[in-house]
């Protein structure tokens, strides 16, 4: 049933995925021919990534879709996996665009592949942090969710207040990982963020399959 679920998921986000690819391509050509640096392209494309992803979640009716899946012969684990595979597809397209931009328009850029990878890991990291916040909705008392989201927003505000632009790639102290900058260089940051991402995904899965948002 996982295959059927994945096909349905692809089907459901096909329009947005096409729009996303189109937007990135237009941005790539526009910025590339206007001489922008790779870092600028990464920043701009990341912003579009968030807009498209949020738009897709709203328009395709995320909650409704989950309620529909709750009636089908699929497990919550399958839905969770299919959802994240789609997110990986979105991010893969983004990273491919960054790589292509680097190769075509800014081959002398000092942004390394590791740095781009680290930046790419930052996207699902923030996404999973937000998703956990939404999935906590099913748990009582309700203040847990608000406390969590409030803390997340607070951390984000601190990061911005400390002049750490969210879309900026390189920081003095290392790569910027959403929502907070992590200390050290690229290698340390990546080494820290990968297990952090896996751990957060595990937490999200735990919450997701035990929650009541119309699926168990």
């Amino acid at each position, binding site marked *: 049933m996982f295959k059927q679920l994945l096909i349905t998921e692809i089907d459901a986000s096909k329009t947005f995925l096409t729009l996303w690819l189109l937007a990135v391509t237009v941005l790539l050509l526009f910025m590339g021919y206007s001489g922008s640096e790779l870092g600028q392209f990464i920043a701009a494309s990341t912003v579009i990534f968030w807009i498209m992803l949020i738009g897709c979640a709203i328009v395709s009716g995320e909650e409704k879709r989950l309620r529909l899946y709750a009636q089908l*012969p699929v*497990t919550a684990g399958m839905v969770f996996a299919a959802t994240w595979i789609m997110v990986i597809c979105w991010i893969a397209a983004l990273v491919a665009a960054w790589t292509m931009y680097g190769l075509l328009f800014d081959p002398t850029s000092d942004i390394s592949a590791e740095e781009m990878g680290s930046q790419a890991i930052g996207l699902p990291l923030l996404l999973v942090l937000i998703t956990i916040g939404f999935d906590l909705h099913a748990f009582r008392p309700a203040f847990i969710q608000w406390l969590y989201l409030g803390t997340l927003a607070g951390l984000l505000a601190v990061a911005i207040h400390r002049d750490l632009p969210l879309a900026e790639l390189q920081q003095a102290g290392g790569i910027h990982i959403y929502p907070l900058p992590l200390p050290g260089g690229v290698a340390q940051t990546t080494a820290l963020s990968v297990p952090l991402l896996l751990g957060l995904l595990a937490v999200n899965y735990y919450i997701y399959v035990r929650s009541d948002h*119309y699926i168990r």
Partner: protein
Amino acid sequence: MLRVNELRRHYRKFDLGPLSLKVEPGCAMGLVGANGAGKTTLFRCIMGSVRSQHGEVWVGEQEATAIDPGWRQDIGYVGDATPLFDGWTGARNLGALSRFYPNWSAERATAMAERLNLDLTQRVRHYSTGQRSKLAIVLALSHAPKLLLLDEPTAGLDALSQDVFLELLFDAMAVEGTALLYATHHISEIAQLVDRLAFIHEGRLVREEIKEDLTQAWRQISFRHEGELNDIPHVVASRQQSPYFELVSDDADATLDYLRQQGISGCESSRMTMERIAIEILKRSA
């Protein structure tokens, strides 16, 4: 076909259960209760879309667990508001969801949509409430389920479509031997369809009866009598405007025997509608 054992779900202001019920293969059970009685919560607990905190649900020989959701292939479910892909046409919704059911028949789906006069080329977001209900009905019935869970399925349906829907249910029961659990607070719509009736009040099953037994036993009895009459057995409601008495009895034979013993003759006993019986049962539960 469906066994629910000691199911419980606690909310801050509402408790469902402990609740047990059984629907045999090929049987139709009506679930009757007022708004907020727990019908929808029960359905969601059965479907696993809301976690129960205690008890178990069996669909056929398979326990309805989250780990192996294969049992959902045997179920057709029409909820209070069936979620659909709003941006897709009815046909595209049917096509996408057919993937999940090996027994799905596209011909059956199309035929049912035609009988219900449902335009499958329109986007679901442009559907009226009734049209959405029709699509949900087609979705629920197109894979020849062994069990139908219907939670207020006729919401927004016109009288003609309701009639067609009942025909479809009769067909499913006759041809496929489908069992069904049908929740409604409009008992008249299921009076002809169901064999058994379960009454739910404040999250608990307060009574479960064979429909024929209810219609046989429950009667409205009227007679003329001078003087007072107290403690008449099995009377659930009474109205007295001396010398006329009007009683509702849940065991008319026993009540009439008692009245005869009291020397009262000329009692008129009349059948009650299922709707009336249900109201009296729910009133007593409250």
